[in-house]
């Protein structure tokens, strides 16, 4: 049986080695700021989590799929609705399980309680270990070889039931996800909510496959898969459909029967995970980390080579000094608070907040208008359940669409900020550097500063997608749940009219109808208002978070650039005072460091094709 971890092409060891070399030199040069950044990069690259979200409607076999994929009972399965909590499954040397609890009233951080793994088959919402606090999710460590490569599965509770009626709720988990397995069984074709969800999900998480489960049970699964293919084509969604049978896979593993395993078609899922997910066709994290190393190495090269140049040619010291001063000033001007990129960021976020808000309001306005028209055209007491269900549905879809749209806009904004930062910020510093070179200052390796630049472009992605385990997902979940149940709510019934006298009855009936309609409309508005209040707050918070991340990120880079120039200046000054006897030693040491840094840069370029340009 193929295990995907063999095919993991992420050269973690090499990258860690590069980081170690670079941070040692950073230590020698007293650059603890760079060392810290490298440490963070190291943590990120050695935390190889690849999140695969498993989503779908109730009773489609999501947990069974996960269990038979891993050949381990990690998720709760049963004939009735069994998965009640989001379950996160990652690698661990021994099986272990933890509950993540919601903060209590004091506002303490979410806390974690370990539970025996054999309790996983129970309903954990009210586990005694939680001590009455709300359980947010279950974290399971499983010693499965398949997870060794860093795969982490997120098994979601089935949606469509009473407690969790909307698939869009799962959307909140997707910005964090590297891949999505959308589970739909072969007993029937896609339903309307499923297709809506697939459309929305693909916008956020393009690495996805649809898993058509239970092919062992349904003789006509081929027709269903074909019909679904046609539905997807009609909706212009390009996503593969993989028909599988978890039952066959379980038997195959129990009997060690390769033929059965092939029949279960699980190899196709594993192939998907290997080719598309583990190989990280677009491995953003690796790219980011390597660029990080690259930038740090170049910062160091700047300092080291300047010092070297100063030692080798003491006459030029004054000129180098003057140039560095000038550049430092330029850098400060270009990169600090008043700089253009800051404006782009601030304006962009303000615009985005307004646009997202407007978009949501607009969607809700249309929904309200539409619903009110319906209410005017009928007796709302008779049709309230229908209207309510429909309303909840369109509101959930609107919130989902708005979320997807805001996400895309935020990514575009991050890219724009990155562009401005590079073009108007760092490039202007580089202009000074071009002049310096013209003057023959011999600062040949200064170029690198402008290098650190190509990294921020991708950072935009990182900032948004990088808020791992953020509240975003949880909140979307909770929010939509709290509004479910509108359909259960009924305006005062018309039946009360029966106690009235016969004569007054008819006129009164008309008034009553007017009042009931008014009441129904008010309920609709109140509901939409509540949702828009919560969603508005959530999306404003999310955008502000993104703004803060971007600002800190680029300000950090700006500070580092200034500091690198500053350090070089100091080094140049120091070089002037070096004793003749020490000079040779210092030159040797600097050349050694420079050599290592060059190698690091070479390797980094090799690892990331984008850097080579």
């Amino acid at each position, binding site marked *: 049986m193929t295990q995907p971890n063999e095919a993991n092409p992420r050269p973690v060891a090499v990258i860690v080695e590069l980081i170690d070399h670079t941070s040692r030199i950073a230590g020698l040069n007293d650059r603890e700021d760079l060392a810290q950044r490298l440490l963070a990069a190291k943590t990120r690259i050695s935390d190889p989590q690849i999140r695969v979200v498993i989503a779908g*409607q*109730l*009773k489609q076999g999501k947990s069974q799929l996960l269990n038979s994929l891993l050949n381990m009972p990690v998720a709760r399965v049963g*004939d*009735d*609705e069994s998965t009640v909590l989001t379950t996160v499954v990652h690698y661990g040397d021994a099986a272990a399980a933890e509950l993540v609890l919601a903060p209590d009233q004091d506002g303490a951080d979410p806390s974690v309680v370990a539970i025996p793994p054999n309790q996983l088959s129970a309903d954990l919402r009210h586990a005694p270990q939680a001590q009455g606090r709300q359980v947010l999710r279950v974290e399971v460590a499983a010693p499965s070889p398949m997870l060794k490569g860093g795969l982490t599965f997120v098994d979601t509770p*089935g949606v*469509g*039931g*009473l407690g969790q*009626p909307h698939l869009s709720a799962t959307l909140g988990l997707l910005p964090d996800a590297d891949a999505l397995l959308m589970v739909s069984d072969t*007993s*029937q*074709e*896609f*339903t*309307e*909510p499923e*297709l809506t969800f697939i459309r929305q999900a693909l916008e956020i998480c393009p690495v996805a496959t649809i898993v058509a489960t*239970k*092919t*062992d*049970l*349904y*003789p*006509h*699964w081929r*027709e*269903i898969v074909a*019909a679904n293919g046609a*539905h997807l084509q009609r909706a212009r969604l390009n996503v593969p459909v993989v028909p599988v*049978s978890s*039952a*066959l896979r379980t*038997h195959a593993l129990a009997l060690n029967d390769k033929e*059965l395993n092939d*029949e279960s078609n699980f190899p196709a899922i594993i192939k998907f995970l290997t080719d598309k997910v583990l190989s990280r066709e677009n491995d953003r994290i690796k790219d980011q980390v390597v660029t990080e190393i690259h930038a740090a190495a170049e910062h160091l090269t700047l300092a080291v080579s300047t010092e070297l140049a100063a030692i080798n040619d003491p006459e030029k010291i004054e000129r180098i000094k003057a140039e560095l001063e000038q550049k430092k000033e330029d850098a400060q001007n270009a990169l600090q608070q008043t700089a253009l990129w800051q404006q782009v960021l601030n304006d962009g976020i303000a615009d985005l907040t307004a646009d997202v808000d407007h978009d949501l309001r607009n969607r809700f306005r249309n929904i309200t208008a539409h619903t009110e028209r319906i209410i005017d*055209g*009928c*007796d709302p007491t*008779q*049709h*309230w*359940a*229908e209207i*309510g*269900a429909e309303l*909840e*549905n369109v509101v959930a879809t609107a919130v989902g669409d708005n979320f997807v749209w805001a996400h895309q806009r935020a990514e575009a904004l991050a890219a724009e900020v990155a562009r401005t930062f590079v073009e108007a910020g760092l490039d202007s510093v580089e202009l000074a550097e071009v002049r310096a070179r013209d003057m023959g200052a011999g600062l040949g390796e200064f170029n690198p500063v402008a290098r650190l630049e190509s990294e921020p472009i991708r950072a935009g992605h990182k900032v948004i997608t990088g808020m791992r385990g953020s509240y975003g997902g949880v909140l979307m979940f909770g929010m939509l749940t709290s509004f*479910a149940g509108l*359909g*259960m709510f009924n305006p005062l019934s018309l*039946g009360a009219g*029966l106690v009235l006298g*016969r*004569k007054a*009855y008819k006129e009164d009936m008309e008034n009553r109808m007017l009042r009931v309609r008014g009441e129904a409309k008010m309920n609709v508005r109140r509901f939409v208002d509540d949702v828009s209040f919560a969603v508005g707050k959530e999306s404003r918070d999310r955008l502000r978070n993104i703004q803060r991340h971007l600002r800190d990120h680029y300000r950090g880079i700006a500070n580092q650039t200034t500091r690198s120039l500053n350090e070089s200046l100091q080094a140049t000054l120091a070089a002037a005072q070096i004793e003749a006897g020490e000079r040779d030693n210092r030159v040797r040491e600097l050349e050694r460091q420079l050599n290592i840094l060059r190698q690091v840069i070479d390797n980094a370029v090799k690892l990331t094709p984008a850097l080579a340009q």
Partner: protein
Amino acid sequence: MSTSARVRAILGGVISAYRSDPVYQHRPQALAELDWIGRRLDQPIRIALAGTLKAGKSTLVNALVGEEIAPTDATEATRLVTWFRHGTTPRVTANHRDGRRTDVPITRGDGLTFDLARYSGAQGAANVGDIVDLDVQWPAAELEQTTIIDTPGTSSLSRDVSDRTLQLLVPRDGVPRVDAVVFLLRTLNAPDIALLKQIGELVGSGSGALGVIGVASRADEIGAGRIDAMMSAREVATRFTAELDRTGVCQAVVPVSGLLALTARTLQQSEFTALQKLAALDGDGATALTKAMLSADRFARQDDSLPVDAITRAALLDRFGMFGIRIAIAVLRAGVTDSQGLADELLDRSGLVALRDVIDQQFAQRADMLKAHTALRSLRRFVEANPIYATPFILADIDPLLADTHAFEELRLLGQLRSRPTTLNDDEMASLRRIIGGSGTDAASRLGLSNDAPYDGPRAAFAAVQRWRRRAEHPLNDPFTARACRAAVRSAEALVADYAAQGR
């Protein structure tokens, strides 16, 4: 006077009122509508099967009728509301939006197939959208007492298909088109429950869902086709019942495997023989069979180690499903030797028998009341829409009857007494059930009077009123017990009033 008789009396009065009104003498269609409302009282009860897409509605229609008369398919099959009525000769009629009626050609295969695709091909594709519903007349004994209506699934990808169902079940004008609904659930999801609530308000009484039975459909699949699948399905159905009971939309949920039931009712000797051959395998053959039964694909593919050829096996699979085959083999191995025995066993396990019992209890025994209720609502709307001088008087006659839902309350209680705990002892329970009509609705059986002492009625009724009034005020009663006792008081009071009216 029974409700049904009262409705007839009111209807008679209304008809004569309209006949004598000069305005309506020239509007025969209004009178025809009244006639139609009256005729409905004599016609079989109309039961609609509803549920989400692919819930197994058509299969259940077939299982209930015992013949394959509703077309089924792996993908969305039913796109039109189809009425199955009793008729002496098979006949399918399409009702068009403009009121036209056309015959649809019937092709006879294994059962009835009326190929709408071919039909629309002949008539122009636009016509299917133009058809309101299909009317199938079929000479089946099961249809004599009930008219069954098959509906397209809700939450279909094509909106207009779902809308057809909604128009039938929850029509905008509030006039019920059906008397009772069997609602098929695969999972409990919010839209289903919302729809159920609406149906419940329209069908049966206005204050609850007496005319609705829930079915946990495709029950064999709930347990993924395992041999104990029906046990799981029963547990799931119990939970459905509990949750639906809380929302008050539906009284009972019964697990049913429509496919298995249909196959059991139409089991053929050739199928029995093939299954018997498979079940008789032992040694290597049995191992091969076990492996073949792992998945549908395996069971239907070429495999020389099995005594039955692949085509037959594929046909068996179509008819039984994976669960059906597994259960049939198990039953045969347990020692059933004839096809009748197998059919009985399968029918029993399919849950259809239980469903028919519930339908009988909830619908058939109360058919008159359900129909009377529907007729009253229709009549009320008609009178409001076509006002005459007598309209207020007619409404004054109708509304008390519509408001009098005690009979429905009795039936609701009869259902709930079985499942909910009370503080009543066994003896009290037995007489409570009797007084609210559990063993018959005439005075003698309500009071438990024997035939040889018929003159004891008034005294016994009076005693019952006092007894249950006292019992209702018992301080240790929980709310449900108190409610049941109060209902008993009211039933007994009605008896006293009846006796008084008879002057005894």
